[in-house]
């Protein structure tokens, strides 16, 4: 039986006592203010053009708004080592149609080229609106009595309202369409209007009052998927607002992400196979199979992964050579000997081999424990209705063991993802190696490794959430 939480979530509605609460009043007030702020001008002015001068004599002149890729081009033209000398900006009044309703609708109509830019802007500016609507629906229902708005929406409204605060700031930065460098010079001239501060205050009020309200209902507020999105947002912000060097780093290392993912998915698939065979071997009553499987597990788990990878990459070809040379003198096996001598492992194969062998050993123990945890009566019942050992494993034991095995195997996947950075020593152009290459070229150590770390973080956090999701979908009542 799959656990179905949704029906339980919708059951509890706000009671009448809760409805007279000051926190509800505050939430309603905040939500209304938010709606009002949509009718007010958010920004008064924006940049129309800027002239930037650098110490080496370089001068960059531009009209605004500019598209992201043009901006990057202009930024990277700045000679390294030159300092910013001065920025001169000219501003213009934002029309009322553009600045009210958070201005996005007018802009989307005006500028279809920057569709992606405006989509992200729309999302950021839409957050307060959606939050306000949900908050008003919730408050309205509790005052009029239950009308079908589930209480589960409370945490959503809180998260949206809280996200609105940085979202509004982002929307403000969009007006500049430039880096923080220019922002520092021009912030004084481009202060946001009263609508901006009103929306900010209203978002905070709604978020805080709803948050204090839900403390009583004890609903889980933290949705850890939000953390994945937050890290993605940080990467996006860095690339968007500090294109030099982050956009450049991103362009340099993003093929490394694909290599990392290819290595990890291949070795994870193979590792599952090795783990299954190893696990079955460890519980086998056949002494030879059992001994071989146990020896494999004990030996491999005792050697560091890095050492295993170095051995496979540097020493294994020599081993093949020696064995091949020995086979050459054996009649009938010359072909096999020559094949071994000619055998060349490419970096990718070596990396996958190393990760599979190492993680297969850990996986074998997980599979062994998972299979042993299934009551032996299950195997007896399956055999008593005429199933063979393989059929009983396939249809009865493994489906049950899979649910036990899934959480630790999910952890192994995340660990594998992180340890895959070690294969960068084998001339595999994975994420870590690409980062190292970029750093040795530019000596931008801080920016490079921050970017690499964030990329790994997105991958690992996303994997962990997926494991949780699969886990919750495969639970059943015992």
């Amino acid at each position, binding site marked *: 039986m799959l656990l179905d939480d949704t029906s339980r979530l919708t059951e509890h509605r706000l009671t009448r006592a809760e409805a007279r609460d000051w926190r509800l009043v505050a939430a309603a007030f905040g939500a209304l203010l938010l709606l009002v702020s949509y009718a007010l001008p958010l920004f008064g002015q924006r940049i129309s053009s800027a002239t930037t001068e650098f110490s080496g004599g370089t001068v960059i002149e531009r009209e605004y708004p500019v598209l992201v890729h043009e901006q990057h081009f202009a930024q990277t033209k700045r000679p390294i080592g030159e300092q910013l000398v001065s920025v001169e900006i000219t501003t213009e009044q934002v029309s009322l149609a553009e600045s009210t309703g958070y201005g996005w609708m007018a802009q989307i109509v005006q500028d279809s080229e920057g569709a992606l830019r405006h989509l992200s802007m729309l999302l950021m500016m839409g957050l307060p609106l959606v939050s306000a609507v949900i908050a008003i629906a919730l408050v309205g229902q509790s005052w009029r009595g239950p009308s079908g708005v589930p209480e589960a929406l409370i945490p959503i409204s809180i998260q949206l309202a809280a996200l609105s605060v940085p979202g509004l700031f982002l929307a403000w930065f969009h007006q500049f369409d430039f880096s923080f460098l220019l922002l520092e010079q021009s912030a004084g001239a481009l202060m946001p209007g009263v609508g901006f501060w009103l929306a900010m205050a209203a978002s905070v009020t709604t978020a805080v009052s709803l948050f204090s309200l839900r403390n009583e209902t004890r609903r889980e507020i933290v949705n850890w998927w939000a953390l994945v999105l937050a890290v993605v947002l940080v990467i996006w912000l860095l690339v968007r607002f500090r294109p030099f060097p982050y956009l450049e780093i991103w362009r340099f290392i993003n093929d490394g992400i694909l290599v990392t993912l290819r290595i990890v998915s291949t070795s994870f698939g193979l590792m599952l196979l090795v783990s299954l065979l190893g696990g079955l071997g460890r519980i086998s009553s056949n002494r030879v199979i059992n001994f071989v499987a146990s020896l494999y597990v004990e030996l491999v788990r005792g050697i560091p992964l890095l050492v295993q990878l170095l051995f496979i990459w540097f020493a294994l070809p020599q081993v093949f050579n020696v064995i091949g040379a020995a086979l050459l003198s054996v009649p009938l096996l010359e072909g096999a000997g020559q094949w071994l001598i000619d055998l060349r492992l490419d970096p990718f194969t070596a990396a996958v081999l190393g990760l599979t062998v190492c993680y297969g050993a850990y996986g074998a123990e997980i599979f062994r424990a998972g299979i042993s945890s299934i009551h032996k009566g299950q195997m*007896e019942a399956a055999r008593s209705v*005429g199933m*063979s050992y393989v059929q009983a494993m396939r249809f009865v034991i493994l489906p049950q063991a899979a649910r036990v095995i899934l959480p630790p195997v999910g952890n192994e996947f995340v660990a594998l993802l992180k340890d895959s950075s070690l294969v960068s020593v084998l001339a595999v152009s994975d994420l870590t190696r690409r980062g190292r290459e970029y750093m040795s070229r530019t000596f931008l150590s801080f920016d490079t490794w921050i970017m690499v770390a964030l990329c790994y973080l997105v991958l690992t956090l996303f994997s962990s959430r997926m494991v949780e999701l699969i886990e919750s979908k495969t639970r*059943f009542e015992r």
Partner: protein
Amino acid sequence: MEPQTQASRSSDPIIQVRNLRKTYYHGKLVALDNVSLDIPQKQVAVIIGPSGSGKSTLLRCLNYLETPDSGDVIVDGISLSTTEQLAKVRAEIGMVFQQFNLFPHLTVLDNIMVAQRIVRKRNRDDAERTAKELLAKVGIADKGNSHPGQLSGGQQQRVAIARALAMQPKIMLFDEPTSALDPEMIKEVLDVMLQLAQDGMTMVVVSHEMGFARNAADRVIFMDEGAIIEDTTPKELFDAPKHDRTREFLGKILH
């Protein structure tokens, strides 16, 4: 050596146990000591005895869930100690366990269908029809889509009986089928077993239910310390036990 041809051949006992010996802990504990036994077709035999007397071990040897140290079991003309097709023979012998041992990850219907599908190679519709008929027969037709964990013990045990019957076995083995049940659920399981006995199923039952032994059994076997002490009709065994140990045991459990 097809089981079908063997069955129709003669009125030979369908189960023949020959000099069965089984020890545990490298021979330190003797569970079965040279046991021989014949069970003819359609007979209902109940095995009773104190715990540790080897009655469950004997039952589990009848389909080779336990492999005996020596001796042989011949089911329907096939010697289990030498046959290459143990799984095929087991499919002809239904077994019901004390702890039910239903498959918790499958629905009740799937529990009954899975072996039909993969062992008997029946198609889905046939398997489902059989499963539903059997569920109706054991009185829980409405529970097909539940999972075992949602059923009471008595209902689970009836599903377990239906699962065994779905293979259309020639023999049914019951290993203390009511020992793990709450008292109010024992009757619903015994009723199903009683019905099965009246339908002419060959049954070997290890049980402490003396009422069932008295009413449904053709034969009661009393075991102690790995050996058959007394083997007779229920009337004689309960009313006039010949052996001291039988009398002592009955005195303890009948009050």
